[in-house]
């Protein structure tokens, strides 16, 4: 596929940031069998840890997806009557918590762990033991979250606003367990972020200047800084909530001079940047996929890097747009509105640069590329509805309606999840040496793509027509659209189960057929992930590559 491709000039900025390297030499490559339970439990190898992150994310996605199934079953009819309002509220709260804290964030941490050291030409992360510790923190986290169902799981939404989440209105232990679960996930993120920052700052291969670093690394670096700045604030907020609940403090109790609105400010100071934490690494991934499968190099590499950094900075200055109806000074609403609209500029740069990347390309339509192209379309829709939500008069009407649910799923499912699926198909052969089925993959893509739009597109109309979110029953005139939504869920369910089945089936196969350059793209791409064996040897490269 690289016939006719112009060769990169030595020493110039090319591809996803990578340049010409000295090929690895040394003893013949040999693949490593990652076998034995003890090996997995005690490993500090970034690749094994990365794979464990991905397994955890897959498990949480199945659990969170099942909860979504419960929600859609209840809402298939105006008076579903399948479950009590309490159980319904538990499902909405836990679906979001699983998907955010245990699926999307760990999945990107998994790909980051596996590929950041390889892409910068390092042998491992800077702090391998801390890396393992960060992963193992997630296990008690998800166990506590799951176990909380036995003690009355949180019914306060993933936002857990007090007073509803406070001691008086959520007097069950499940709420405390939710806080502990989020704490563990947060601590894991912070440790991971420190590790990524140090790794990329100190361990880049010789010759790899900052602006030769591939975009996935840049995205992970910027994301790590956001985690480092934002997550401690969330930890503080939920710790204050915890002491309110267990120790009689009254940070958020108005009867004793506390303020429920304070929690909202602290929560969104983290949780708005969190939406970029959940999408920026995906931006990095699709940059690799779109460029390589179009047989081109990324358009406007430096612009992409600056746009990523700009999104991160502005991301910390817009949290108030989640609170336009919560009561704030008029001028403050103008400020938050304007800053939120401003995010559209760097995001637009990214979308245009991706389009310019594939424009004039010679596109290879693999499953991975189809998910990446699907991402580009769906994320554009989510971005546009985001601009609408930044517009205060409109936002006030649709705030806390299904319009918001539609928007957030277009960016988190059409955005983040599609990049993860694209990344899975892209890097699975590299990680395992085995290809996932392409023909089945295309079926899975169409099931998920059509199901996704059937599920989340009608939610826009539902929200504008006045269906509030987090409701277990609704007015009869919303029935038809809700049944489209539930039918779409079934399509995605079939697609998701086929994918899980395909992963297990492929892993059971004995034959490893993938060579180093899995997709035959490295003539153009020049990134180091395609320079080592599939799967890579434990030390990644027999000789540390020299980038020129």
């Amino acid at each position: 596929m690289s016939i006719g491709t112009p060769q990169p000039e030595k020493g110039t900025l090319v591809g996803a940031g990578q340049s010409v390297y000295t090929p690895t030499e040394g003893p013949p490559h040999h693949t490593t069998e990652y076998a034995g339970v003890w090996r997995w439990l005690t490993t500090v190898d970034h690749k094994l840890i990365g794979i464990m992150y991905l397994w955890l994310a897959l498990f949480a996605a199945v659990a969170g997806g099942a909860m979504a199934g419960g929600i859609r079953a209840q809402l298939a009819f105006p008076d579903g009557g399948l479950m009590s309002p309490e159980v319904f509220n538990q499902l909405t709260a836990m679906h979001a918590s699983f998907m955010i804290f245990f699926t999307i964030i760990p999945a990107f941490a998994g790909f980051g762990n596996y590929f950041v050291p390889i892409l910068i030409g390092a042998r491992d992360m800077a702090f391998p033991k801390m890396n393992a510790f960060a992963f193992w923190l997630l296990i008690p986290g998800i166990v506590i979250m799951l176990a909380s169902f036995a003690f009355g799981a949180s019914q306060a939404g993933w936002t857990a606003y007090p007073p509803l989440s406070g001691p008086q209105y959520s007097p069950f232990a499940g709420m405390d367990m939710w806080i502990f679960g989020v704490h563990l996930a947060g601590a894991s993120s912070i440790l991971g972020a420190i590790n990524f920052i140090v790794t990329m700052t100190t361990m880049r291969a010789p010759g790899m200047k900052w602006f030769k670093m591939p975009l996935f690394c840049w995205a992970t670096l910027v994301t790590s800084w956001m985690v480092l700045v934002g997550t401690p604030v969330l930890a503080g907020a939920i710790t204050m909530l915890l002491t309110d609940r267990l120790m009689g403090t009254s940070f958020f109790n108005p009867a004793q001079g506390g303020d429920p609105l304070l929690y909202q400010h602290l929560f969104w100071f983290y949780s708005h940047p969190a939406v970029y934490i959940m999408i920026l690494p995906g931006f990095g991934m699709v940059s690799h996929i779109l460029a390589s499968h179009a047989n081109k190099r990324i358009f406007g590499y430096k612009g992409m890097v600056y746009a990523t950094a700009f999104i991160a900075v502005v991301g910390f200055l817009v949290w108030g747009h989640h609170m336009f109806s919560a009561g704030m000074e008029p001028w403050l609403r103008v400020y938050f509105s304007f800053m939120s609209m401003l995010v559209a500029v760097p995001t637009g740069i990214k979308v245009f640069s991706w389009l310019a990347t594939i424009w004039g390309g010679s596109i290879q339509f693999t499953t991975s590329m189809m998910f990446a192209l699907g991402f580009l379309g769906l994320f554009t829709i989510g971005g546009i509805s985001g601009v609408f939500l930044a517009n205060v008069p409109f936002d006030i009407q649709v705030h806390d309606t299904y319009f918001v649910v539609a928007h957030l799923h277009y960016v988190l499912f059409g955005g983040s999840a599609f990049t993860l699926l694209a990344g899975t198909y892209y890097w699975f052969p590299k990680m395992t040496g085995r290809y996932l089925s392409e023909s089945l993959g295309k079926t899975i893509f169409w099931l998920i793509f059509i199901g996704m739009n059937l599920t989340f597109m009608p939610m826009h109309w539902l929200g504008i027509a006045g269906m509030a979110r987090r409701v277990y029953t609704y007015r009869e005139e919303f029935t038809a659209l809700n049944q489209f939504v539930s039918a779409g869920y079934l399509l995605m369910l079939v697609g998701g189960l086929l994918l899980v089945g395909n992963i297990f089936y492929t892993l059971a196969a004995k034959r490893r057929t993938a060579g180093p350059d899995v997709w035959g793209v490295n003539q153009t791409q020049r990134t180091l992930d395609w320079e080592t064996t599939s799967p890579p040897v434990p030390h990644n490269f027999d000789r540390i590559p020299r980038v020129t």
Partner: protein
Amino acid sequence: MNKADIRNLILIWVGALLLAVLTGWGFLMWAPAMDAPVPVFEAPTTHWVTDPATSVAEQVRRNTAWTITVIFPFLYGPLLTLLYVVWRFGKARNPVPDSVEENVPLEVFWTLIPAVVLVVMAVPSFAVLQYMDRVPELNPGEQDYVVDVTGRQFDWLYSFPKYGVEMVDDGTGDNPLVLPLNQIVLMNGTSSDVNHAWWVPAFGVKFDVIPGRINPAWFRPTKEGFFKGQCAELCGDLHAVMFIHVKVVPEAEFFEWIIEQGGEIPPEEEEFVSNLLGEDVEIPVRREVAHAAAE
């Protein structure tokens, strides 16, 4: 890339602009204008999009149409371009890729244009926001009506402090809040337990009610009718059925309702109310206040 591709790209974006204008216009058409007739007391599904019932909602509706018009080119443009790329630049149709990696003027262009468009969108949006935030001056001979609303798990407590009326909308619709037509209503919202939000879609009004705080809002109902809304902030198990019912009636009927609810009219308003209701209706006047004022 050749000249035909460039021409098609320009056509795509011109098409996106036209489509956006059509969509904005369609939004306004789908939503009938403010003075369209609405069946009185039989329109529980009126909404800010289809049938705004206050001047605030009408402003929001027009602003939304404008936002669609200026923003949707950036929806249709990328999507149509994407479809074109998929059709045109597949490996089969375009076996040899170009090697374009940057084009600084183009990058500056697509940074600046969205920024300008955002300003074009933001300025009218801020004007509407200011309209929502600023209570208009009263016309001569007009008065405003203050309603204190308190959200509770899971009903709404309303009070008209001036008339000493307190009533509860329990969510069944049997006892709706009654408001005067074409008069300025000032609402002060708070909560006695957890966060709720007062939301009537047809009014274009939504404000969180939070314990320990008072959030204000104003609107001027411009249509007679029966309007439904609901709590818009998760507040517990019965959040989904914490409904709001509002009946908008002419000012005279409003005062009849106030008197029926056991309300008393302050003496300075006695003449005004008596003019509204007619000479032969006896008006309960708050005597103690009159006495205290005389001293």
